[in-house]
C-alpha cells in the first residue's frame, strides 16, 4: 500500500517535470521562431517590390507620390553615415579601451568606474543623443545634415566599440603582456602586440558598431534631415535607409508602401550580411586563441 502511494507520488512529480520541460521547449521555439517570423514577413512582403531599379536609381521627381525612381540615395547615405561614424568611433574607442586595460591598473577605481560608465552609456537610447545633438546644432546654427548625423551616431557607437574591445582584452592571456613587458617593451609596444592578438575581434567590434549605426533611426531623425538628392556634401541633409523606410511606410499610396517593404528587405540583407561576417570573424578569433 505504502509502496503504491509513493510510486504514484513520484510519478506525479516526474509528470510535472515532463510538462515543465515541454513548456520550456515551447518557449524556446517561440523565441527563436520570432526571428524567422520577422525576417520571413519582410521577405514575403518585400520581395515582390524589390527590383534593380529600386537599388540602382535615385528618386525621380515625385518619388513619394508614387512616381519612378529608387532608393540609391538612401542606401549611399546610410553607408556614408555608418562608415564615417564607425570609423571615428573606432579611432576614439580603441585607444580608450587600451588605456583602461594596459595603462591604468585593471582593478583601479578609474578603470572600473569608466567601464561601468560605458556599460551604462550603452543603454542610453539614441533619441536622447538625437535630442541633445539637435539642440546643440540649433544653438550653433548648423542645420540638419549628414555631419550632424555622423556626430550623433559616433557618440552612440563609441560605447559599443569600447565595451566589445574590453571584452576581447579580457581573453588576452596575462602571460602575453607579462612576457612583452619583461623584454623591456613600453606599454604602447605591449599594446601593439595585444592589438595584433585580438585583430579579428576588433573587426567584430567594428561590424557590430556598423550594424547599429546603419540601423538607427531615432538619432538621425532629428539631426540628418531627409533629402531626395544623392548625398554629395557633408553639410547637406541626407536620406538614410531606415528613415526612407519610416517615411515611405506612412504614405497612403500602396506603391510607395511597397517601396518601404523593399527598402526594409535591403536593410535586412545588409544586416544579415554583417552578422554573417561577425560570425565568421568570431570563429577566426577562437581559432586564434587556441
Amino acid at each position: 500500500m505504502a509502496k503504491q502511494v509513493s510510486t504514484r507520488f513520484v510519478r506525479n512529480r516526474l509528470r510535472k517535470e515532463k510538462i515543465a520541460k515541454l513548456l520550456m521547449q515551447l518557449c524556446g521555439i517561440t523565441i527563436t521562431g520570432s526571428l524567422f517570423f520577422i525576417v520571413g514577413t519582410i521577405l514575403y512582403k518585400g520581395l515582390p517590390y524589390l527590383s534593380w531599379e529600386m537599388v540602382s536609381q535615385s528618386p525621380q521627381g515625385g518619388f513619394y507620390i508614387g512616381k519612378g525612381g529608387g532608393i540609391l540615395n538612401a542606401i549611399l547615405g546610410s553607408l556614408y553615415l555608418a562608415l564615417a561614424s564607425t570609423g571615428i568611433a573606432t579611432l576614439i574607442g580603441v585607444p580608450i579601451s587600451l588605456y583602461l586595460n594596459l595603462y591604468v591598473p585593471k582593478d583601479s577605481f578609474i578603470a572600473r568606474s569608466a567601464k561601468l560608465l560605458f556599460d551604462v552609456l550603452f543603454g542610453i537610447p539614441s533619441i536622447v543623443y538625437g535630442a541633445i545633438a539637435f539642440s546643440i546644432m540649433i544653438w550653433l546654427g548648423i542645420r540638419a545634415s549628414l555631419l550632424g548625423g555622423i556626430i550623433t551616431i559616433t557618440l552612440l557607437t563609441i560605447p559599443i566599440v569600447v565595451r566589445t574591445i574590453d571584452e576581447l582584452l579580457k581573453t588576452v592571456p596575462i602571460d602575453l603582456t607579462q612576457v612583452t613587458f619583461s623584454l623591456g617593451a613600453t606599454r604602447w609596444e605591449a599594446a601593439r602586440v595585444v592589438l595584433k592578438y585580438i585583430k579579428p575581434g576588433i573587426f567584430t567590434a567594428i561590424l557590430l558598431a556598423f550594424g547599429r549605426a546603419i540601423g538607427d533611426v531615432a538619432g538621425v531623425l532629428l539631426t540628418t534631415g531627409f533629402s531626395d538628392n544623392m548625398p554629395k556634401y557633408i553639410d547637406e541633409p541626407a536620406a538614410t535607409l531606415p528613415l526612407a523606410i519610416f517615411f515611405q511606410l506612412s504614405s497612403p499610396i500602396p506603391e510607395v508602401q511597397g517601396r518601404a517593404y523593399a527598402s526594409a528587405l535591403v536593410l535586412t540583407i545588409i544586416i544579415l550580411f554583417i552578422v554573417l561576417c561577425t560570425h565568421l570573424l568570431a570563429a577566426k578569433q577562437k581559432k586564434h586563441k587556441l
Partner: protein
Amino acid sequence: MRFRLWKDKLVQYGSAFLLITKILVVVLIAVGLTLKSLPLLKNENLWEILSSSVWSPLRGNFGFLPFILGTVWVTVISLIIAVPLCIMASIYLVEFASDRLRKSVLPLMNVLAAIPPVLYGVWGILFVVPILRNYVAPLFGVDTTGFSVFAGGIVLAVMIFPILISIMVEVMQTVPQELKDASLSLGATQWETIVSVNLRKAKPGIIAAVVLGVSRAIGETIAVLMVCGNVPQIPKSWFDAGYPIPALIANNFGEMMSIPMYDSALMFAALLLFVIIFGFNLISRLVLNRLEDHG
C-alpha cells in the same frame, strides 16, 4: 630609447584625453538637458508636470502623465510577455539542451539583437497590428485599429528577448554544480531542483536582467512609435492607443521652435528618459558585475 618612452607617454595622454572628453560629453548631455528644461520647471513645479494629464502645448499645458503611463503600459506588457518566456527558455538552454542546440540558438539571438528597430516596426505594422485587429480583439469583443499599447508591448517583447536570454543564460551558468548535485542526491527531480535551487540562486541576476530589459524597453523609440497609435491619452486597456515618451520627442521635435516652452518640455522629456535609463542601467550593471566577481 628616449623616443620610445615619449611615444608611450604620448599614447597614454592621448587616450586619457579621449576618455575624459567622452566623459565630458556625458556630463554635457546631463547639464544641457537640465538647463534646457529649467524654464519649464521654473514655471510649474515638478509634481504638477508629472501628474497632470492635460497636454496642450498651444495653451501652455504640459502634463506628462499620459506619456508616462503610455510608457509604463507598453513596458509592463512587454515584460509580461518576455520575462516568463525568457526564463523558461534560458533554463532549458542551460540545463537540458545539448551543446549543439545551445551553440546554434545563442548566435540566432545575436541576429535578433542586430535587427534594427525600424524593421521591428515594419514587422509590427505588417503582422502584429492586423493580427490584433482581425483575430485577437474580436475574441475579447473589442473594436480596435490594432495600433495599441498591446501591439507596442509585443514588438518590444521580441526586441528585448536577446538581452534577457543572453544575460539569463550567463547568470544560470554561474549556479554551482555542487548545489544542484546536493539537491538531486536528496531525491529531487531535475525540475524541482531548478525551481528551488537554480532559480533562487540566480534571482538577483534575473532581476538585473529584467531591469536592463526595462531600460531598453523604455527608451525604444521608433518601433513603438510605429505601432502604438500615438494618441496623448491615458490607456485604459491593452487595446487602447498610447503615446510613450520617446515617441513624443521624436514626433514633435520639428515644430517645437515656434511654440513657447515647447522645446523646454521636450527637453524635459529627454531628461526624464536619460535619468530613468541611466539609473536602471547603473543598478543592474552593479548587480551583474558583483555576481561576476563572485562567480
